[in-house]
């Protein structure tokens, strides 16, 4: 019984959070958001899905005949489930560091600008040009023209908090 109550409270809290995040993008105040903003909403709620996972999620919350808009009524239950199951957990710092180290096969402690561009635009789920430029602007040390990923990660993580 107590367990059920607790869960209800948690769910209620999730609902409020989800509603808040959704409303930030609900420009017309009609409980819909542009489908292109769904990724931002989900991620700001603490989840870290891949583009592929995001794509699947969108398919789940879209209308039968996609309108380009996602309705809150459809979004809420799906998102609540995700939060309850703690799906798409964020990536811990050390895991992120190891990922960079994999790319830095020579173990220099940094990646050159060109290397970063190559990996980010040709591997995994490639960046768009805009995404690449934005990442470069903050990550690349202009003097060495490289990214010292350990410092970069530390900086980004502090910024988050």
């Amino acid at each position, binding site marked *: 019984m107590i367990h059920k109550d607790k869960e209800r409270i948690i769910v209620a809290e999730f609902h*409020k959070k989800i509603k*808040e995040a959704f409303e930030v993008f609900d420009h017309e105040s009609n409980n819909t958001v542009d489908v292109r903003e769904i990724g931002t909403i989900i991620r700001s709620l603490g989840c870290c899905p*891949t583009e592929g996972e995001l794509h699947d999620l969108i398919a789940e919350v879209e209308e039968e005949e996609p309108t380009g808009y996602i309705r809150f009524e459809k979004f809420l239950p799906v998102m609540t489930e995700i939060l309850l199951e703690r799906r798409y957990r964020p*990536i811990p710092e050390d895991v992120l560091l190891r990922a960079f180290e994999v*790319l830095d096969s020579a173990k220099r402690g940094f990646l050159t600008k060109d290397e970063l561009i190559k*990996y980010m635009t040709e591997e995994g789920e490639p960046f768009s040009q805009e*995404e690449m430029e934005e990442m470069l602007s903050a990550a690349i040390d202009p003097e060495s023209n490289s990214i010292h990923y350990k410092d970069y990660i530390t900086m980004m993580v502090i910024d*988050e908090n």
Partner: protein
Amino acid sequence: MGSGTSTRHHSAFQNAERTFKAAALIQRWYRRYVARLEMRRRCTWSIFQSIEYAGQQDQVKLHDFFSYLMDHFIPSSHNQREFLTHMFTEDRFAQDSEMEKCSDYESIEVPDSYTGPRLSFPLLPDHATALIEAFRLKQQLHARYVLNLLYETKKHLVQLPNINRVSTCYSEEITVCNGLPSPERSYVFNGDFVDRGKDSVEILMILFAFMLVYPKEFHLNRGNHEDHMVNLRYGFTKEVMNKYKIHGKEILRTLQDVFCWLPLATLIDEKVLILHGGVSDITDLELLDKIERNKIVSTMRCKTRRKKEKQMEEKGKANRKSSAQEPIPWFLPQSRSLPSSPLRLSSYKAHKTNRSSSIPCGGCLDGRELSRQVRSSVELELERCRQQAGLLVTGQKEEASRSASEADSEAGELQKPTQEEWRQVVDILWSDPMAQEGCKANTIRGGGCYFGPDVTQQLLQKYNLRFLIRSHECKPEGYEFCHNRKVLTIFSASNYYEVGSNRGAYVKLGPALTPHIVQYQANKVTNTLTMRQRISRVEESALRALREKLFAHSSDLLSEFKKHDADKVGLITLSDWAAAVESALHLGLPWRMLRSQLVNSSADNMLEYKSWLKNLAKEQLSHENIQSSLLETLYRNRSNLETIFRIIDSDHSGFISLDEFRQTWKLLSSHMNIDITDDCICDLARSIDFNKDGHIDINEFLEAFRLVEKSCLEGDTSECPQATNAKDSGCNSPGAC
């Protein structure tokens, strides 16, 4: 067997896979980071907007209150009557004769030491460009030339129609908003030239100068800030008085005139309508074309002719929809007041009315219940006055006094606009588009309405127009289309809220009338910052403003928190915190998202609310002896107070008497919902009057307030007038007064 090769292949494959996964992981992480930044950016935006709109609401609420008092308050003493008239006479700046105007500026001597631009009329293009150069070098135009320019500007404006018609076959390109004009390039500036930034005077000078030099190519529309009442609050009045200490008053007076002669709209090729705010379902361009636009001195306070008068009018008047019964001001029990959140329009349970109420004075509105104290205190005050005046039937006396004053005002003075005329202009200058169909009162602004795509369509069809261009709302990208691309919002002030907050834009129209948008961001610094840094800066600014607002509502917050703490443990959940804050502030902000920025992490999701409030106060001002509720109220109403003082200080001398201060405070006390005795007011007044000469310097008052803040932060008790007085008068604890 080839196992070597396959091992190599295998490890090569493994490597490729690992690389792929690593890259994917980094990308996944990065995309989340960017999404969170984007969310922060949106939240920051919401903060600024909701605070700005709440401020606008305040402004209007205050005006409603005073307008109502003006109309219904029967002063019990001659002094009170004097005081009120003195405070609220809109016609303070009486219409001077032309002769007086001439001598106004001609008699002003310009010293030889003056190195700024010297203008002669008629203005030549060189003068205009010289002005720009001079301002770039931070020079100030001498008052004589300012007044001269304004006088010439008015002469020009008077000949213009209400709706300015511009044709593209004359000029090849029309730009709505920036740059240097020439015969091939016409410009339309769509209002709100002042009140933001500290160079409003200079901007006006440039605009007017160019308008005089290129009268056929340069067009200005009036915005809601081209209004002396609005200027009082938003800083333009202050700017003028600071820059022109001797002639500021005259300049403001002349400007009041110039503003009300600004055309209301511009029509391009009879197809594109450009106006500042928007339209409503009753917008009548033919009527607007015919009214005497200079009668609408300010859209804030409508002194319209009474119904009686209207009946007595000549039949020639335009077809007027009979104005519905007078709207009920928001602070009276019969009205339903403003909705809680500016951003949640859909939850605003609108009465299903077809009435397109665009009157700033409240009227059929819905929302939260008004504080009983306010209502009853206003009613009590009125009752008391009526009794004192010895009236049996209030109605009669009011009617009598009104028609008397009307008779006076009629004689030789400017005819006031009708309710309908005024409403039409307010709609044009204050309305905002909305996504939903229909037309409803713009409760956020307190003026004009929200108009839906159907209203736009109706208007475009009626007058055979192609689309509307308007401004009035800040947009992150500087522009925004809506209503099926039939309405274009153009906002040209980049970095409006804060450096990096938004881009500016202007639109160009060629003969085909296709809009071409140009965006920019006017700050070198922002270009070198990363997105992250830009967002952080703006965010910090927004959060600071928000914390200030939170502090100003400390008492409300405390009572809301207590509601969630039935067992009086001193703790509430973070979820309750969010709910409580929204109930107290009504800003409609995503509090759960902002929480991490406003609340230090606490153990098990519980918050010690009292110490949280204490910390808030510490940030703002930290001396325990200060009568915190009084200061809190002062703080919350800081900008209102300044406005009010400036209204009282009609000669802009910068001084108000202690008595005026007390009277004002009394009038305000019901509005501000605090209980304060006369003694406390006297003490407050005396403590602020540092040199004990019976006058309070407005600037010093506000300065003193800031000093109090500052010195208390530095822990210097001797500087705290409040503290000393508190000990003397015995008002040491909040609420004791």
